[in-house]
């Protein structure tokens, strides 16, 4: 079963806000100068910000903010965020892999930016909604 797709817009302002809230001030997430010096095309989103947005999608599907039992991802491709008002978009979809007898649902999650997957092995286990 496929779950309804969710789309998240990501702008530079979101990265600055996430940096402050998370304490991750690595300049590749706010300075084009530093990002390009280390070989990136420009400022990229924190991997953990992408993971947090995908986590929002997962809790949304679960129907409860406290239903996530396990959640893991591999970061495979950076999310480049241009310095304009639109930024970029991350689209998140998921497929139910398994519903266990003891009340758990296992999801296989896909996150893409500009049509390219930005995560692999993205999986979440949630308590099945009653």
């Amino acid at each position, binding site marked *: 079963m496929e779950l309804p797709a969710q789309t*998240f817009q990501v702008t530079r302002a*979101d990265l600055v*806000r*996430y940096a*402050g*809230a*998370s*304490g*991750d001030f690595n300049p590749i997430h706010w300075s084009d100068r530093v990002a390009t010096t280390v070989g990136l095309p420009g400022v990229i989103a924190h*991997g*953990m*910000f992408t*993971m*947090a*947005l995908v*986590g*929002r999608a*997962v*809790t949304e599907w679960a129907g*409860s*903010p*406290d239903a*996530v*039992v*396990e*959640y*893991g*991802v*591999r*970061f495979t491709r950076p999310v480049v965020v241009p310095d304009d008002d639109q930024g970029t978009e991350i689209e998140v979809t998921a497929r139910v892999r398994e519903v266990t007898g003891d009340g758990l649902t296992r999801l296989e999650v896909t996150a893409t930016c500009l049509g390219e997957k930005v995560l692999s*092995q993205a999986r979440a286990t949630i308590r099945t909604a009653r």
Partner: protein
Amino acid sequence: MPLDPSFVGRTYPPTAPYQVGREKIREFASAIGATDPAHHDPEAARALGHSDVVAPPTFPVIVTMAASSQIIEDPALGVDYSRLVHGDQRFAYTRPVVAGDELVCTNTIEDVSTRGGHGFLTTRTDVSTVGGEPVVAVWARYVIRGEA
């Protein structure tokens, strides 16, 4: 310089307690656009059976990333931070983090290897309350890019 595989299995002393504040959870939830009332309103969280506002699933990384400096900045291990790339991240929850928790992290090095000129480091952080109640186990895998 390749990472020393003898570090596998090493456990570090528990970190100083991190006090989870209600406003920090609200700030983090707002930064990721998480609007569920249980992240913001203690009454909504209590209705779900929690003592105070509930943190979003990736909130524990605030605590574990700070704690992991114990490993990443361990001069004996010798990780080159400028070459460090976050590869994988995983959380296994006993329960969600809630405001008022005082969290202690115990870091363990689960794996150290070198392949294709790149170093790989897997850490496990057991996050528990100061009273010893387990809350969440957090794994991170880092790639230390080799010299091109």
